[in-house]
C-alpha cells in the first residue's frame, strides 16, 4: 500500500540526502524531487476531496503509543498550496543562484520543504516540536545563505527567537502530557477539560507558536530576516514558513483550546491581529526598500488572518464553516501573492542591482512581465477583486456586521486603504518615460543582469493564481472543508 501522507514527507527527505551527497547534481535532483513531492501532495488533496479526511498510523502502532499523520480539508488545501508555491520557487531558484550557492541551497531547501509538509500533516504535539526545529534551522540557514553580515545577524536572531518559541511550546507539551497522558492531538482534545491545565498548556504552546507566526507585537524578528534572505528564500519564508506556524496556531486553537478557554483569548488574538494590520501596513508604506516593504506587508497579512479568531469563536456552526473557508482562502491567496511579489522583487533587484523603491522605475519598465506580476500580487494583497482576498474579506466583513462586531470590519477597511497606499506607491513606478534597454537607463556604475523569460514565469503564474484563479474558483474550498473533522 502507498502511504501518500508519509511520501510527501519522505520524498523531499530522500531528495535532500541525495542532493547533499552529490552536490554537482543537486539542481536536477532538487527539481525531480520537487515534482514527485508535489504530485504526492496533489494526490493527498484529491483523496481528501473524494474520501474525506485521511489518517495514517506510522509504524502501525496506532495512537496513543505511535505517531499519526492526518489531513483534512484545512490542512489538505494548505498542503497543496505550499507544494505548488514551493515548486514555483524551485523553478525560479534554478535560474537564480550562482553555482557557488546552489550546492548549499538545494539540500537545505528540500529539508525545509519536507518540514513544511510534515507540519501540515502533523497530529502529534511532540512531533510538531521536532518538525518546527527542522523548519526553523533549515529556514535560518537558507536565510543566511548570502553570507552578508546583516543577513547572518538577522537570521541568527531569527534562529534564537525561533528556539525561544519552540522551547516555550515544548514546556507546554510536557505539561500537557503530564496532565493528559497523551501526545496525540485528537485524544488530547477528547480528554482536555476547562481548567488551569488547559490555560497553562494553551498559553505556553500557543505563545510559542505565535512568536513563530510573527503576530504583532511578536513580529520584530521577521522584517530583517525576510528582507535579507535571497529572494527565493524570502518568498518561502513569507509565503510558507510563517503560514505553517499560523496553521499550527489555528489547528491547536480550533481542535484543542477554543472549546475550553472561553471567548477572551480569541478576542485578544483578534486585537493583536488588528495591531498587526495597522502597524505592518504603516511600516510597509514607510519602507524605502522593496523587500522590506514586502516583509512588513507579511506582518499585516498575518494580522488579517488573526482577525477571524474572535468571529470564529462567536459564530455558530454553518457560519463558522463559512468563515473558516474565508480564512483558508485568505491564507492561500496570500501564500501565492507574497511568493509572487518576493520573486518579482528578486528579479528587479538582480536587474537594477538594488531594491530602493524610489529608483526602481526604469527596471520595472524594462521588465513588463515582472511589473504585471507585481501588479497582480498587489491587487491580491490589497484585497481588490477579482482576487481571492476580496472574497475572503467580503465574507469577513459581512459576518462582522451580521454579528454586530463592526469594529473588526473597521480594521479591515482601514487596512485595505493602507495596503492600497503602499502597493500603488510601488506600482506608480511602472509608469514613466518609455523604457530603453535596462543598463542604459540604470547608469553604468550599478551591475545589472539580463533577466530571461523562464525565470519570470513562476512569479507571474503565482500572482495570477492569487489575483484571479482563487477569486473566481474558490468555491471547492468549502466542499473540501466539508470533509473536516468535527
Amino acid at each position, binding site marked *: 500500500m502507498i502511504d501518500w501522507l508519509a511520501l510527501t514527507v519522505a520524498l523531499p527527505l530522500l531528495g535532500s540526502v541525495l542532493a547533499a551527497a552529490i552536490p554537482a547534481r543537486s539542481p536536477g535532483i532538487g527539481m525531480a524531487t520537487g515534482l514527485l513531492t508535489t504530485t504526492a501532495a496533489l494526490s493527498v488533496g484529491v483523496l481528501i476531496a473524494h474520501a474525506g479526511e485521511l489518517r495514517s498510523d506510522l509504524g502501525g502502532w496506532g495512537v496513543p503509543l505511535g505517531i499519526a499523520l492526518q489531513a483534512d480539508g484545512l490542512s489538505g488545501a494548505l498542503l497543496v498550496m505550499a507544494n505548488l508555491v514551493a515548486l514555483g520557487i524551485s523553478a525560479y531558484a534554478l535560474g537564480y543562484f550562482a553555482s557557488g550557492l546552489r550546492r548549499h541551497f538545494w539540500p537545505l531547501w528540500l529539508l525545509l520543504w519536507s518540514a513544511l509538509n510534515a507540519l501540515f500533516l502533523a497530529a502529534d504535539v511532540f512531533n510538531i516540536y521536532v518538525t518546527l526545529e527542522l523548519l526553523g534551522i533549515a529556514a535560518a540557514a537558507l536565510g543566511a545563505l548570502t553570507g552578508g553580515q546583516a543577513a547572518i545577524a538577522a537570521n541568527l536572531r531569527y534562529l534564537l527567537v525561533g528556539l525561544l518559541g519552540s522551547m516555550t511550546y515544548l514546556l507546554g507539551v510536557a505539561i500537557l502530557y503530564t496532565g493528559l497522558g497523551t501526545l496525540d492531538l485528537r485524544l488530547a482534545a477528547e480528554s482536555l477539560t476547562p481548567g488551569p491545565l488547559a490555560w497553562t498548556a494553551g498559553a505556553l504552546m500557543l505563545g510559542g507558536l505565535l512568536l513563530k507566526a510573527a503576530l504583532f507585537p511578536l513580529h520584530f524578528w521577521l522584517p530583517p530576516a525576510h528582507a535579507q534572505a535571497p529572494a527565493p528564500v524570502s518568498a518561502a519564508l513569507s509565503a510558507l514558513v510563517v503560514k505553517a506556524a499560523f496553521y499550527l496556531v489555528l489547528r491547536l486553537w480550533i481542535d484543542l483550546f477554543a472549546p475550553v478557554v472561553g471567548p477572551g483569548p480569541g478576542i485578544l488574538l483578534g486585537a493583536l491581529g488588528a495591531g498587526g494590520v495597522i502597524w505592518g501596513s504603516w511600516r510597509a508604506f514607510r519602507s524605502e526598500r522593496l523587500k522590506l516593504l514586502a516583509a512588513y506587508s507579511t506582518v499585516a497579512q498575518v494580522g488579517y488572518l488573526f482577525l477571524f479568531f474572535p468571529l470564529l469563536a462567536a459564530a455558530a456552526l454553518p457560519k463558522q464553516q463559512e468563515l473558516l473557508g474565508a480564512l483558508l482562502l485568505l491564507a492561500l491567496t496570500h501564500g501565492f501573492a507574497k511568493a509572487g511579489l518576493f520573486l518579482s522583487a528578486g528579479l528587479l533587484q538582480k536587474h537594477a542591482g538594488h531594491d530602493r523603491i524610489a529608483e526602481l522605475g526604469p527596471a520595472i519598465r524594462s521588465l513588463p512581465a515582472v511589473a504585471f506580476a507585481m501588479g497582480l500580487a498587489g491587487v491580491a494583497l490589497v484585497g481588490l477583486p477579482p482576487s481571492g482576498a476580496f*472574497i475572503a474579506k467580503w465574507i469577513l466583513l459581512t459576518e462582522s456586521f451580521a454579528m454586530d462586531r463592526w469594529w473588526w470590519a473597521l480594521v479591515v477597511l482601514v487596512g485595505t486603504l493602507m495596503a492600497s497606499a503602499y502597493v500603488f506607491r510601488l506600482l506608480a513606478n511602472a*509608469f514613466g518615460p518609455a523604457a530603453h534597454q535596462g543598463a542604459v537607463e540604470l547608469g553604468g556604475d550599478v551591475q545589472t543582469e539580463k533577466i530571461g523569460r523562464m525565470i519570470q514565469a513562476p512569479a507571474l503564474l503565482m500572482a495570477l493564481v492569487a489575483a484571479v484563479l482563487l477569486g473566481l474558483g474558490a468555491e471547492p474550498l468549502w466542499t473540501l472543508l466539508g470533509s473536516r473533522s468535527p
Partner: protein
Amino acid sequence: MIPDNILPAAIVFSSLIPGLFIFLLDEKRHVLRTVLNMAGALAKLGLVGILILGVYEGRLIESRWTLAPGLDLVLSADALSVLFVTLSTVLWLVTTVYAIGYLEHSPHRSRFFGFFSLCVTATVGLALAGNLLTFVIFYEALTLATYPLVAHRGTPDSAQGARVYLAYTLGGGVLLLTGAVWLRSLAGPVDFSQGGMLSDLAGVYDGQLIVIFFLLLGGLGVKAALIPLHGWLPQAMVAPAPVSALLHAVAVVKAGAFGIIRVVYDIYGVVLAESLGLLSVLAVVTSVTIIYGSLRALSQDGLKKRLAYSTVSQVSYIALGASIFGPIATIGGVVHLVHQGIMKITLFFCAGNYAETLGVHKVSEMNGVGRRMPWTTLAFTVGALGMIGVPPMAGFVSKWYLGLGAAEAGSDWVLLVLVASSLLNAAYFFPILFRAWFKDPPARWPEEHISAGRLETAGALLWPPVVTAMLALAAGIFAAAPVSPLEWAELIARREYGL
C-alpha cells in the same frame, strides 16, 4: 444562436479576451493589434444586438457563477442594463477607431490598448451586474483598469493626476464596499429587482438603511463626480484624449451615475427611497453640483478642463432625474445617460483633434479653427448646442423631460436649476463657438502636426466625432422613433414604476 445563460458572459469576454492577447503583443504588431481591437468591438456589437432582441421579448437572460457559498457572480440583462451596454459598446467601437488614429505612434501601445479593453470589459460587466456583489467587483475592476490609462503618459503631472484619481476612487470603493456588505448582512444577497428589494426591511431598520444609502452614494458619487467628491475629474484631464472621452462619456462617470440609478430604483425602490427622505437630499446634492460645475467651467481657459467641469455638471442631470419622484423625471434622467454620453464624447474627440492637428489646447487659441477644421468644428457645435439644450438637440429632450417631471412632482425650484444651468452652459459654450467660427485664424497655429490635405486632419481622427455628432442629432430629432433612447427610457420607467 447563443443560449441565454451564456450570452451576458460572452458579451463581457468579447472585449476581455482580445485585451489579454493584446497585452502579449509586441509593440510593433500594429496590424494584428488593430484587428484584435476591431474584432472584439464588432463581436460585442453583434452580441449586444442579440441581447436587445431578447430583452425586448422580455426573456430572462442571465449568466451565473458561484464564487463561494451564497456568493454568486450574476450577469443579467434588464432594460436599464441593455441601455448602458448598448451605449458603451457603440461608443467603445468609435473610440477604438479614434484611439488607433490618436496613439499608434506613442510608446507602450500594447499596454494602453490592453487596459483600454479591460476598461470597457469592466464597464459592460457592471452594466450587466445582476446583484450588488457583481456590481462592486466590476466597479473596482474599472478603477484598476482605468488607473494605468490615466497614468499612461508617464509625465510628472499625469503621475500626479493618476495618484489623485486613485485616492478618490479607491476611497470611494471602500465606502461602497462598506455599504454593500452592511446591506448584505441585513438583507442577504442583494439582487437588483425592479421596484426595489428592501420593502420588507422598511420600518424595521430605517436608520441603518439611511446610513447605508449614504455610504453607497458616497462610493458612487466619487465616480459620478458629485460635489464634493469631484476633485479627481479635472485632474484626470492629463490622460490622452481618447481616455478622457471614454472616462467622461462612458466608463467612469457613467458607472457612478448608473450605480446611483440602480441603488435608487432596483435596491431601495423609488417608493422606499422617497419615504425615507433620501430623494430630496439627492436632489439638493445634484442641483448644487450642476450649478457649481457650470460656474467653474465658465472660468476655465483650458478646453479639456472646461469640458471636464461641464461633465461634472451634466452627469448630475442623470442622478437628478433619479432624485425626482415620478416616471417622467426618471425618463429624463435615464435618457440623459445616453445623450450626455454621445454629446460629450463628440466634444472630447474634437478637443483631441484640435490638440493633435494644430496644437490648440486653450479656448483662447481657438480663433478661427472653424475655417481650418470645419467638420470637426461642426461636430463640436452640434455637441455644444446639445449640451446647452437647444431644440431639437438630444440635450433638449433630456432637459424637457426633467423639467416636466419636476413640475409634475411639484418641486419647482428644480426648474430654476435647469434654467440657470442652461444659461450657464450657453455662457461657457457660445464664446467658443463664436471664436471658432467668426474670429480670424492666427497667422500660424501653436504647433501644426498634421497639415491640411484632402481632409482637415487624419481620417481616423475625423470620422469618430462626425459619426457621434450625427448620432447626437438623430437622438434628438428621431426621439419619437420606436427604438430611440427615449423609447427605451420610457420602457424602463414603466417597468420601474410598474405602470
